[in-house]
């Protein structure tokens, strides 16, 4: 556990060395990635609870713990899969484990900073929201930057290729989601079809 926190510290202070270090064998564990994602989720939920009234954009009944979790895990997981897949085709060096854990660690700035930034909403009025938006954007920007660093170092790419891979990854995510939704619809139809046949047979028995 303490190892996980030490790595979190390193990714904030020395991202480049962090991402080269995680390529050492047995340096990281799958569980590290899951712990970080759990922390991000926790930080997000706490920040929702701590948001000042004036800054709330949703009513409490509109917020679902499950929904928030799905919207964190699904994009992150599809990003990992798409990024790993695209890089593997285009001569990337990264293993899936490195992508999986590395992407999770890229979200550490968000997990660490979102709570203090959200606390600000309790002492800021709405017309001072630019401070809050700036800090929030910086937090998210930091995470995005770490994602790019991850692609560059884990897969050992040129900067230009990093941009190209990022775009391809986003396209990959879109394709995965499209196919996922398509499969969901088709399987739904199939199940309904089978159920109806069973029903029909039952009626005529």
């Amino acid at each position, binding site marked *: 556990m303490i190892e996980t926190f030490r790595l979190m510290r390193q990714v904030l202070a020395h991202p480049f060395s962090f991402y080269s270090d995680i390529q050492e*064998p047995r340096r990281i564990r799958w569980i590290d990635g899951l712990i970080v994602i759990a922390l991000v989720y926790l930080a997000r939920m706490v920040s929702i609870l701590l948001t000042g009234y004036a800054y709330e954009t949703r009513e409490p009944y509109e917020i679902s713990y499950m929904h928030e979790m799905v919207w964190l895990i699904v994009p992150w997981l599809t990003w990992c899969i798409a990024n790993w897949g695209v890089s593997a085709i285009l001569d990337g060096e990264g293993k899936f484990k490195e992508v999986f854990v590395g992407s999770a660690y890229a979200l550490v700035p968000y997990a660490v900073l979102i709570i203090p930034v959200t606390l600000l909403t309790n002492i800021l009025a709405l017309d001072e929201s630019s401070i809050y938006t700036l800090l929030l954007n910086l937090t998210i920007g930091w995470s995005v930057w770490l994602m790019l660093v991850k692609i560059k170092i884990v897969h050992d790419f040129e900067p230009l290729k990093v941009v190209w891979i990022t775009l391809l990854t986003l396209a990959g995510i879109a394709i995965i989601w499209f196919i996922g939704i398509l499969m969901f619809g088709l399987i739904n139809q199939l199940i309904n079809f089978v159920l109806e046949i069973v029903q029909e047979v039952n009626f005529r028995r």
Partner: protein
Amino acid sequence: MNAFRKWVAGLTAFALLSVFGSGTVSAATPYEGYTYVKHGGDIHSTNGYLYEDSIDGYDLPTGAFNAPEDLFVADDDSIYIVDSGNSRVIHLDADGNYVGTIGDLEGDGMLNEPKGVFVTHDGMVYVADTKNQRIAIFDQQGKFVQQFGKPESPLLGETFSYSPSKLLVDKRGYMFVVSDGNTQGLIQIDPKGVFRGFYGANHIGFSWVRLFQKLVATEEQRAKIATVKPLEFSNAVLDSEGFIYTTTLGTDRNQLKRLSPVGVDTLPANKVYGDYFVSGDAPFSVPSFVDIVVDNDGIMTAVDLQTSKIFQYDKLGNFLFAFGGLGDQNGLFVQPSSIDQTSKGAIYVVDKGRNRIDIFKATPFAKLVQQASKYYVEGRYAEAEGLWQEVIRQNSHYELAYLAIGKAHYKAENYEDAMRYFKLAYSRADYSAAFKEFRKEFTREHFAMICVGLILLLIALRYVLPLLWRLAKKQWLKREASKALKGGVHGDRNLSSDATGTGTSV
């Protein structure tokens, strides 16, 4: 459970007794009062207006009305009814007694299916004589005085068809005429009958689709696309301050407008009037307001033909009440066409489909809300507060009341209470404003404590946190060393560098 059942039975018995036992109540109101809340749409509320009586002309010397189109309440509360199907204007006094008929005699004054009437302060009657394509003017006694035909101007265009349906006369004697099917605005005619331009026309907003069509479509394709015209006014009325209010057809927002002397809408932009969703065969239908009346306090009451309902708004466009609906019972309408209000607050609605005029009276609750809203609109929040408290006591769902009380507290510098009420009214912007003041006050009072707190926080961040970090790491290193003795971790070059590197940087 048993006690509850007994209680319900008792309540039902009481309700039955109160409905059938008393002689004065003949039938329940056929419509249900409602109000809008930000979260939850429309919810039940106390009715603002109740049906009182009708005028149908059978007991008057005039006989029954036929498709009445318009109604005007003059300064002395006498009413002018435009009996369109019988081509006449009927004048009744404030108690509904017959005074006279205008335009039913042969000669220049003979009307032909008029649709609108306006009476000036000195009693001159202006009639929009639609089928005759003219404005006819009569004096107090109903004698024909003058007429103005189709206005002449190159601005009107060659294809202009004149069909005056509604009109108003401002204090200069200028006539503002609504001509059916004309989308260029109100037609201004001066006291000499000369066309003086259009007034307050609706504008066409920007549309991405149209821009795209313009860029992509060829000449022939463009010719086939229907031209977009500004929306048409259905009515125009004058209030006591000289503002002109209009109703617009064919849109779902800003259907009601208060036009300034230069023809600019002064009501809040992007307001939605009427029902948001109308149940029925269509999933969504756009309200079509056909008439509006404005009282001396700026409270607007408008007729929606789509739902056959009457909607009332305060001077800022906040929803107050809705009543009426489509149906045959007293209090519902078949086809409402016009509305006006007496100085005592009674509302007259012309039901063209049933050839009669229905009279509605405000309930005590409506009077309370209107009085409170009047103070609120004028910014006299402190005076309004007590009234709004009473409104909440009678109907705790009335969201406008919470907002108004919040403003009263804000003005009285009770910022904490203001924040509480703004929260109840779901008004985040107002809440934030009150919070800002509250924060100022709080900081001033607890300045020393805040400073001490900040210093403690800085110390904690600078010294205590790194100390804890070092302790934790020492523990971890110890464990790692013992692990290394047993076997160690391969290729852990980070371990040594970090132990020295970050250890000093902390």
